């Protein structure tokens, strides 16, 4: 169906889906930490907007609550906490090189997006016309988030990758099934909140333990011959 003949709300949702995918690519390419956090907040904002739009169009009032939780957690709380950490550790100006080079990573992300469409293609059209598109987009956001985790060395960037995987999941739930049942959604939000707090605690520990937030230094444990003696101090 051509885009112009669709109902206005669905056109909006598709556009938002495209923007969310675009913000995932931005996250992948951005090497400055502060900008990374801002883009993450932007992605959260787009997600919140999508949720409100879905709630208004399809008359699912409980989605307003989800939208509010998203706004509070992903637009305000998590970016605020990350910014605080960045200021505290004084790594605002740090520029990080992406493992494998930016071009290769972007190409890989493009391939992942195509792969997502390929995976979702066999699903017969079930309800919403845009379901196929939106499921493919959410899968792509999840996979790109994972790609981001493996191509970054800084703990903060890995956390943002982790949270953007979470964004992809939330997007999938909102656009394909009008959100999960309320009790589940609250549970997931609680887990995300706890995870965000734990990440903050972990930053402190990593910083205190290895003197840097570069997870490349976390390399003591290996699959074989991990020659580590538990009580070194003895």
């Amino acid at each position, binding site marked *: 169906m051509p885009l112009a003949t669709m109902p206005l709300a669905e056109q909006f949702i598709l556009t938002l889906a495209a923007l969310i995918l675009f913000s995932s690519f931005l996250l992948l390419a951005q090497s400055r930490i502060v900008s990374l956090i801002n883009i993450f907040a932007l992605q959260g904002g787009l997600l919140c907007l999508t949720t409100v739009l879905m709630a208004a169009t399809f008359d699912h009032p409980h989605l307003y609550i989800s939208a509010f939780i998203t706004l509070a957690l992903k637009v305000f709380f998590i970016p605020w906490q990350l910014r605080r950490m960045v200021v505290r550790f004084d790594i605002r100006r740090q520029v990080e090189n992406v493992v494998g080079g930016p071009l290769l990573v972007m190409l890989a992300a493009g391939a992942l997006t195509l792969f997502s469409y390929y*995976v*979702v293609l*066999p*699903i*017969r059209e*079930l*309800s919403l016309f845009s*379901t196929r598109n939106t*499921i493919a987009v*959410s*899968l792509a956001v*999840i996979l790109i988030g*994972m790609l981001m*985790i493996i191509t970054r060395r800084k*703990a903060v960037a*890995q956390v943002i990758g*982790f949270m953007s*995987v*979470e964004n*992809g*999941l939330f997007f*999938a*739930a909102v656009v*394909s*099934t009008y959100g*999960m*049942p309320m*009790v*589940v959604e609250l*549970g*997931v939000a*609680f*887990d995300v909140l*706890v*995870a965000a707090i*734990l*990440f903050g*605690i*972990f930053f402190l*520990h*990593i910083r*205190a*333990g*290895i003197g840097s937030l570069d*997870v490349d230094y*976390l*390399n*003591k*444990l290996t*699959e*074989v*011959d*991990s*020659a*580590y*003696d*538990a*009580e070194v101090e*003895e």
Partner: protein
Amino acid sequence: MTALYLTLLFPLVGVFVLAVVGNRPWAGTLNVLFTVAAFVAALKLSLNVFSYGTLISPGKLFYVDAFNVYLILLNALIGMTTAIFSRSYMAHEVEIGRVDGPRMRLYHAMYQGFLLTMLVALSTNNLGILWVAVEAATLATVLLVSLYRTPESIEAGWKYFILCGVGIAQALFGTVLIYFAAEHVMPGSEEALLWSVLRTHASQMEPQVMTLAFVFLLIGYGTKVGLVPLHNWLPDAHSEGPTPMSAILSGLLLNIALYAIVRFKMLVDPALGNHLAGHMMMGFGLLSFTVAGLLLHRQRDVKRLFSYSSIEHMGLMTFAFGIGGPLATFGALLHMIVHSLTKSAIFVTVGHVTHVSGTQAIDKIRGLIHTQPVVGWCFLICTVAIAGFPPFGIFTSEFLLFNATMKSFPWLVIPLLLGFGVAFAGLFRHMQRMVYGAPPPGQVAVTANMWPVIFHLFLVLWLGIAIPGVLVDWLNQATIMVVGMGVL
């Protein structure tokens, strides 16, 4: 139903109480009392289920049938015996100054929190809550893995957090897809994520969506089971944390994730009408079994050694559930029990071993049987049991699995036998030197409470010689639930 609520209530109260008083000298005893109370409630619950059949709570939020009630009981039992061990073990750790007061509060509160999340995961009827609880179990244990704050333990904690977090995210995507498929069968229903409801509508669900969902669920929960190649976090997390945590991580958490996979398989099979889910599980299971068996040979840390042994056994169970006949399923259910009992006993023993020798390095642990015979003997017998020797229960369940494989896929018997041999050699080449050999000078016996270990070994021995009729009946009911027919 009251019994179930009580089973969940005790650890819940425990989290809050121990978060406040967890650093007192008697906190360990309080921890034991909470687990004993939960165990008594779980015992009552299982008697109820045994006499009245499947229970569903009024809001359909909880669902207890023959399949999960025995895991709930097992959970409560091992939670209790490990708490008894943890009391003296952690007191020793405080004494030698490895942990301080605030960390003891964290430890005790999260011990209860971990048990709570596992019990919720087992008893819930809502597949979304199942995911939330499994993720919460990760969050509860992640700070315990890095409790000692050494660079290694922080690395292990970070790996555990990121890998399991990302892995489990795949499972949530799978759950969303299941919900998506269910919404089309029962539009607008608030109950489309309830397992008991989905089970009755499973055959009408869109097969393509269900296939895709199962792939994600298997990868997601499979990360938590420790299936190769998603297992990297497991040996680190199990070896770096305090030993009581290793015992319940290896003994219980892995079971929960496998339980989740089997629950989903029960939904996917009728929807697909073929054996795809089973074949995927068989592949992953056999790969984990083989690779972990080989990796046993290259370990230098005693806790890592037994973590790989856990991967091996989880692989075997996944393989058995994948085969899917009544005999294989019965064997796998039995294997879940005996593996949990033996593996937690091993970690408890290893805890004492590390206190005796002051190290976790296999090369430095020598002559246990000379220094402290009771620890040495328990260590030896536990290893014999986990390696699958008769007359212990693991032999029985492995024998059943072996028979089932012979019947359905005869050619797979060869890699299975090879795997058993390789794993056995991997364990014993290390064991021999640790138990016998000359003890290093100055090695002295420590105060050790071996009763939990002896109790577990006794149960495993009992299950190996004569499985009580009640339990057989129970496992048979669970088998009927999973594959549609029993073995008896």
